[in-house]
C-alpha cells in the first residue's frame, strides 16, 4: 500500500457474479456482473430493457435472482425480501418512490422501524431525523409533520434517502433518480450523493442520462441485453461515444426487409401535428407524415411519445397544439371521434389498453369496427369478406376465433390488434411499441405487414424505444426527448449511436437554449448548440436573430461540416472568431465539471467586426456547472 501505483481502491462491498433472471420465457438478465465499492459511485448503464432495473431490484431484495452469486463484504449472501436487504444495509432509491403518501415525513423516514416490536419514541425519532437531514445539508428542506402526498418529487426523494440513512445503509442504489427533477434539484441531489460517497458508502447510479453519468460517477458498468459487457471502466477515461458503442454494440439483423423501391408518397402530408401540448409529459411535439410513409417516433421510455399518441387520439386531454388530417384542422376529443377521422392507434400496453379479455378473438378483432358501426347490431356482416381476407393474410387460425385471445402468443395477439385497425381502413395508423413482447419470427412478419399497409397509401407512425427497429422499419425519424421534438431526420443520416445521443434527455436543454437566445439577441447573429463528431455535426438547438446569417445548421438536423456555410470555423475551432466569407464564427466547447464534452456552443455574426470574445465566453461560461469540489 505504500506505492502510489498500487490499487488503493477498497475491496467490493457487494459483488454480483453471473446473475440471471427469467420472467416466464423472457430472459431479463443472462450474465450480469457488478461490483460496488465503498467510497465510489458506480454508474449502471444500458439501453431500455438491458436489465439495469432488474439487477438493482435483485440486489435490493425486491425480486429473487434465477441464478448467479451475490457476495456482501466477501461473504455469500442471499436475500429474499426487502426487509433482509434493509437488515444488510442495502437501500434502493427508486424512480417510483416507495413511500406511504398518507403518512408524515417522519413516519416515512422510520417506516422500517415501525415493523420492529416495542414502543417508539417519536421525540427521539424526530431528533434522529433532524440529525440525518443536517448530515445531508438539508435540515430545513423538509417539514417533518407534512404528509408525503403534499411533497414535491425532489422532496420525496430526499425522504427516500433519509429513510436509507435511518437504516444506516452502507449501499444505496439510485434508480433513475433524476427523471422528475429540475436541473437545480439534480445538482443538489448530486451534492448529497457526493457526501454519501465521501462517508464511505457504496453507491450505484442507474441512468441513461449520459451527461449525469459523467457528472457524478467514478466508474461505469454497462449492461446489454442482460449481460455485463463492460465492467468498472473509469468514467474519466470515457466519452459518450465509447459508452454508446458498448450499450448498442451490434448490427441490425436480417429481420428487416428493405422496403420495396418505388412506393409512392403522397405530395402533401396526410397527417400533421403542430406544437402538441399535454402536460406534464408532452410539452411541444410537432411532426407530419405523408401517405405511404412510415415515420418513426423515437425516444426513451417516458419521453412523452406514448402520451403524445394518446393525446392525439383523444385518450388524454390536450392543453395546446393543432392537428391536421389532409390539411384540415381537426380536434378529436374522444377515440370514437379520432377513429371517424381515419386514425387508428395500437396502444403500447397490449393487456391493459388493447385486449378485452372476456370477449372472443373474433370480437376483439371486430372491436373498432363495432365502435364505428352505427346500427343496433354488431355490424359484423358488413366486413365479413374483408375479415376473411385479413385472417388469411395474417395467418390467423380461422377455427379458433371464438376462443379467448389470452391463449394466443404475444405475437399473435399483436397481429390481431393490428388487424382490428386494418378492418376499419385507417388513413393514419399509429403503432406504439408494436413488437414489445413479440417473438423474433412474428416481428419480421409485423414489419412486412406495416410495409404493405404503407404501400396501400396509409400514413404509418411507429413509436419505439428500440432504435434498431426504427432504423430498420422507418424512412424518417422524429426524435422526442423530455416532451419536446428534438430532431426530424431521414434514416440515411442516422445511426443507432446518433439516435441514442439525440434521445438522451438533456437536463441542460432549456438552460442552453436560453443562453442561445441571449447570444443571438445580444450580438444579432445565429447561436447554435451542436455535437461535433469528426466532420459530422448534429445540431441540438439553434436560435437565429432577425437578419442573422444562415450557417446551414438547423435544430435537430445532421449536416457535414463542408456543407455548412462555416467550414473554416468548424475546422479550426480556435478561441477566436474565424471568418468564412462574410460570416465570422466563434465556437466554445461545453464541458461538465469533470471536463467531459457536452457539445459546442457557436455564435455566427455577419460582417468582419465580431464582438469581443470575452463577452461571448462569459455568457457561455456559466453553462458548465460551477465547481463545487476542489
Amino acid at each position, binding site marked *: 500500500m505504500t506505492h502510489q501505483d498500487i490499487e488503493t481502491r477498497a475491496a467490493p462491498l457487494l459483488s454480483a457474479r453471473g446473475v440471471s433472471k427469467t420472467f*416466464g*420465457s*423472457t430472459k431479463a438478465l443472462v450474465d450480469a456482473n457488478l461490483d460496488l465499492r465503498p467510497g465510489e459511485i458506480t454508474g449502471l448503464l444500458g439501453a431500455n430493457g438491458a436489465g439495469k432495473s432488474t439487477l438493482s431490484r435483485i440486489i435490493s431484495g425486491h425480486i429473487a435472482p434465477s441464478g448467479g452469486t451475490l457476495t456482501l463484504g466477501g461473504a455469500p449472501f442471499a436475500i429474499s425480501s426487502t426487509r433482509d436487504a434493509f437488515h444488510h444495509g442495502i437501500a434502493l432509491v427508486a424512480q417510483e418512490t416507495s413511500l406511504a403518501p398518507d403518512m408524515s415525513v417522519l413516519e416515512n423516514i422510520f417506516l422500517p422501524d415501525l415493523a420492529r416490536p416495542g414502543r417508539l419514541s417519536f421525540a427521539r425519532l424526530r431528533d434522529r431525523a433532524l440529525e440525518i437531514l443536517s448530515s445531508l445539508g438539508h435540515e430545513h428542506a423538509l417539514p417533518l409533520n407534512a404528509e408525503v402526498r403534499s411533497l414535491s418529487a425532489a422532496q420525496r426523494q430526499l425522504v427516500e434517502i433519509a429513510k436509507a440513512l435511518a437504516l444506516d445503509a452502507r449501499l444505496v442504489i439510485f434508480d433513475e433518480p433524476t427523471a422528475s427533477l429540475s436541473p437545480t434539484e439534480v445538482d443538489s441531489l448530486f451534492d448529497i450523493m457526493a457526501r454519501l460517497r465521501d462517508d464511505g458508502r457504496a453507491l450505484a447510479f442507474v441512468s441513461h442520462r449520459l451527461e449525469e453519468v459523467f457528472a457524478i460517477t467514478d466508474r461505469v458498468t454497462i449492461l446489454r441485453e442482460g449481460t455485463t459487457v463492460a465492467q468498472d471502466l473509469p468514467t474519466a477515461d470515457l466519452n459518450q461515444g465509447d459508452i454508446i458503442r458498448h450499450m448498442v454494440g451490434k448490427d441490425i439483423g436480417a429481420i428487416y426487409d428493405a422496403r420495396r423501391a418505388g412506393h409512392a408518397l403522397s405530395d402533401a402530408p396526410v397527417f400533421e401535428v403542430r406544437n402538441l401540448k399535454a402536460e406534464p409529459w408532452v410539452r411541444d411535439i410537432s411532426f407530419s407524415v405523408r401517405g405511404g410513409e412510415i415515420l418513426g417516433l423515437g425516444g426513451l421510455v417516458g419521453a412523452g411519445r406514448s402520451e403524445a399518441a394518446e393525446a392525439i*387520439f383523444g*385518450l388524454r386531454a390536450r392543453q395546446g397544439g393543432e392537428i391536421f388530417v389532409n390539411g384540415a384542422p381537426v380536434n378529436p376529443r*374522444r*377515440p*370514437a371521434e*379520432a*377513429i*371517424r377521422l381515419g386514425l387508428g*392507434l395500437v*396502444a403500447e400496453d397490449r393487456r*391493459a*389498453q*388493447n*385486449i*378485452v*379479455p*372476456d*370477449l372472443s378473438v373474433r*370480437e376483439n378483432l371486430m*372491436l*373498432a369496427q*363495432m*365502435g*364505428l*358501426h352505427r*346500427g*343496433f*347490431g*354488431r*355490424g359484423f356482416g358488413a366486413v365479413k369478406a374483408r375479415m376473411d381476407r385479413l385472417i388469411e393474410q395474417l395467418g390467423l*387460425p380461422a*377455427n*379458433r376465433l371464438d*376462443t379467448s385471445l*389470452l*391463449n*394466443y*402468443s*404475444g*405475437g*399473435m395477439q399483436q397481429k390481431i390488434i393490428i388487424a*382490428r385497425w386494418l378492418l376499419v381502413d385507417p388513413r393514419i395508423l399509429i403503432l406504439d411499441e408494436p413488437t414489445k*413482447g413479440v*417473438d423474433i419470427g412474428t416481428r419480421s412478419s409485423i414489419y412486412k405487414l406495416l410495409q404493405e399497409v404503407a404501400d396501400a397509401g396509409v400514413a404509418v407512425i411507429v413509436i419505439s424505444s428500440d432504435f434498431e427497429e426504427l432504423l430498420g422499419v422507418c424512412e424518417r425519424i422524429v426524435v422526442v426527448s423530455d416532451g419536446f421534438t428534438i430532431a426530424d431526420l431521414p434514416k440515411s443520416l442516422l445511426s443507432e449511436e446518433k439516435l441514442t445521443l439525440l434521445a438522451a434527455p438533456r437536463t441542460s436543454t432549456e438552460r442552453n437554449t436560453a443562453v442561445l437566445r441571449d447570444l443571438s439577441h445580444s450580438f444579432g447573429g445565429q447561436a447554435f448548440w451542436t455535437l461535433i463528431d469528426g466532420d459530422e455535426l448534429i445540431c441540438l438547438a439553434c436560435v437565429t436573430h432577425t437578419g442573422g446569417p444562415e450557417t446551414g445548421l438547423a435544430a435537430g438536423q445532421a449536416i457535414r461540416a463542408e456543407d455548412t456555410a462555416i467550414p473554416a470555423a468548424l475546422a479550426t475551432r480556435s478561441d477566436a472568431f474565424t471568418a468564412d466569407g462574410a460570416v465570422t464564427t466563434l465556437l466554445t466547447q461545453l464541458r461538465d465539471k469533470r471536463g467531459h464534452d457536452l457539445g459546442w456552443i457557436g455564435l455566427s455574426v455577419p460582417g468582419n467586426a465580431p464582438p469581443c470574445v470575452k463577452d461571448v465566453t462569459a455568457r457561455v461560461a456559466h453553462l458548465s456547472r460551477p465547481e463545487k469540489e476542489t
Partner: protein
Amino acid sequence: MATRDTTSPGLVSRVLNSLEFRMLGLALLLAVALSLLSPYFLTQRNLFNIMDQSVVIGIVAVGMTFVILTGGIDLSVGAVFGLTGIALALLLRDFPIAVAIPLAVAMGGVVGLFSGVLIAVFGLAPFVVTLGVMAIGRSLSFILSGQRSLSGLPADLQNIVYSSFLGIPANVLFLIALYALAWAYLTYTKGGRTIYAVGSNVEAARAAGLSTTFYSILPYVVSGALSAVAVTFSLAQIMSADPLAGNQLELDAIAAVVIGGASLYGGRGTIIGTLMGVLIMVMIRNGLNLMGVSPFWQGSAIGSIIILALLAERLINWRSTRR
C-alpha cells in the same frame, strides 16, 4: 410469454364445459334432491308456484346482470321497487293502467339514470351511489305513501298476472320473453357486447371507439326500469302497495346473478346463468318451506350458497390461470 396454441375444442365439449351447463346440472340435482326430501316438491301445483315466485326476483336479476357485467353493482333495486310500487298505486288513482304503468317504469328508469350518470360521468363508486339512492328511495316511498299500504287498485290490473296463454300464466310468459330478449341483446348487439367490454377492459373499449360512457349508464337505467316492471307484477298479485316492499330484494338479485356465475369484477357472466341462479334460489327457498324449515334459518342457507358459488368461481379461475 408465448403460450401454447391449443387446438380448438369441439362444440359438444364447449357446451359441456360451459358455466350455464354446470349451473343447469346443479339446478337439476337440487330438484331431484328436493323431490326426494319432499313429496310435494314435484307436483304441478308446486312447479307453478316456483315459476310464479321466480317472476319478481327474475325480472330484477336481469337488470342486476346488466349492471354487474359492467363491473358495477346496484343496491337500490329494492328501494326503487318499493318507491315505484307506491308511485304506481298513486298514479292508478288518476290514470288508466296503460298510462300509469309506463309512467312508473319511466320513473324507475330516471332513478337509474341518476345513479348511472353519477357513476359513469362523475366517477363515483357504484356501491356508494346506489347505497345513497337506496336510502333516498326508501325514505321517499314512506313519505309518498303516508307510511301505510295503499290498496284499492283497479281490478283490471290482475289481468296481467291471471290471464294465460297455452296454460302458461302471463307473468311467467313475460319472464321467459324478457330473458330471451336480454340474452339476444347481450349476445348479438353492439350495445350488449359493449356492456361486456366495459366490464372486461373499459380502457381498451374506449380506445377502440366504443361509447363506454353511454353503455356504463344504460345498465343502471335498465335496472331501475325493470325494478318498476317487477313491482307491477307484484302489485297485480297482492293488489296493494307497501312502502316496505322489496326490502332486501337487492340481496336476492345479486345472489342470483353471482350464483349464475357472473364475476363481480365485470365482463363475465351470462343471462342464462342468471336464470339458473334465480331458479336455484327460488327452489331452495321453496324446498325449505315445504320441509318446514324455519324462515330464520333460510337466510343462513342462502348466504352459504352465495359464498360457495363465489368460492367455486375463484377456484375455477385459479385452475384456468395456472395452466
